[in-house]
């Protein structure tokens, strides 16, 4: 378990692709530089979508936490 305290959390569990990534992008769009946004997603595609997008956008994926039936992604806005 990580001890990172997110500034915002997006719960996209149950959403089909590309819903979780778009929800994350929407939240990062309104966040301040340095804020950490946590995305909760049970869609396996997010495991590739999120790192690809954070790389592309220059944000940092600082942790991915595996929970029982979903993943939590922690993204720090550049």
């Amino acid at each position, binding site marked *: 378990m990580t001890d990172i305290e997110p500034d915002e959390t997006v719960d996209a569990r*149950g*959403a*089909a*692709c*590309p*819903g979780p*990534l*778009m929800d994350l*992008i*929407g939240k*990062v*769009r309104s966040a301040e530089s340095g804020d950490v946004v946590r995305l909760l997603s049970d869609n396996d595609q997010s495991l590739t*979508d999120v790192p*690809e*997008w954070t790389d*592309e*956008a*220059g944000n940092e994926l600082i942790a991915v936490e595996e929970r029982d039936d979903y993943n939590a992604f922690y993204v720090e806005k550049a």
Partner: protein
Amino acid sequence: MTEHVVILGGGTGGTVLANDLADRLEPELDTGDVRVTLVNDDPEHVYKPVWLYVPFGQREPDDGRRPLDELVADAVDLQLDRVSDIDTEAQRLQFDGSAGSVGYDYLVVATGSTLQPDRIPGLREGGHDYYSESGATELRDELLAFTEGDLVLSVIGTPHMCPAAPLEFVMMADDWFRERGLREEVDITYTYPIQRVHGNPHIAEWARPIMEERDIEVETFFNAESVDPEAETITSMEGTELDYDLLVTIPPHAGTDLVEAAGLGDDGWVDVDKHTLEAEAAENVYALGDAAATGVPNAGSVAHYQAGVVGQRLASEIRGRPATATYDGKTLCFIETGMDAASFVEFDYESPPSPAPPSEKLHWSKLAYNESYWLTARGLL
């Protein structure tokens, strides 16, 4: 005691449902045991797919408008009012101004999508769209006079109405400029927020080679951050900047503030069970069409099928029977691939789409459906 069903929104979903209930509950409506009210803030029903053709000079906005009272069955009370508050505890809607309020036993939220161009600085001044009547006519004036330069189509956010329409627009524009002998003078660029050209991977895999073959440039992972109308540039969160001479965008979408204020869901979309379409946060409330956050495309066919499900469930509940009808994610969609060819997809929650080879026959099928849409709205087709 009269059971009162109130439908909020007179778009495709609300109108089809109103007519569905008028037919399905005819005996109860006749005896006064049931009352159905459709509330809309515009006396006209709008068929938005017509707007795709307006910029190319092929349709007029009036082709997509009909008086709502001509489309809705007489047994339905049509109330032209703007709702200012939904109180799901008291089961009551407040009308704007001094128009009073109305109670409901069952509420169906069919409030659709709204455009939010102001979320992107410079977009209102620099961009054009065909997702509103005024946008489509203004774009028509620009497009008909456009003979050379960079045409950029940017999909700024999802979900948005008709996920196929951005692909349709660039494919139609490509063909339209070719037919007019101007294609070599016009560069077309398509941008999409994620790593492929469409949210659905099957449609993206089908469309990408067509776009390559037709020399439509593609920029993926492009989430527009701002538009500079003076410099004629659009910049993404990912740091890409594109020059444009004509910028066409799919503006950010949201639902309605009413939904959020009522605690029914975020960003104006109602959180629902994606099979029963029942709201998760309130009793006796359903949502359908764009307003319902089901993850399926915001498309008229979705609203149409969902209206049938909600109609069956409401009739069962009113008659004291278990409601068993469920929505399986069914979506039908024609996709224009040029000025005289189209594809077709059909899919649901379990079965992915498999786009049909584009043909002239499918193009005419799409145009024929557009003409016969008014039968759909009446619940006949």
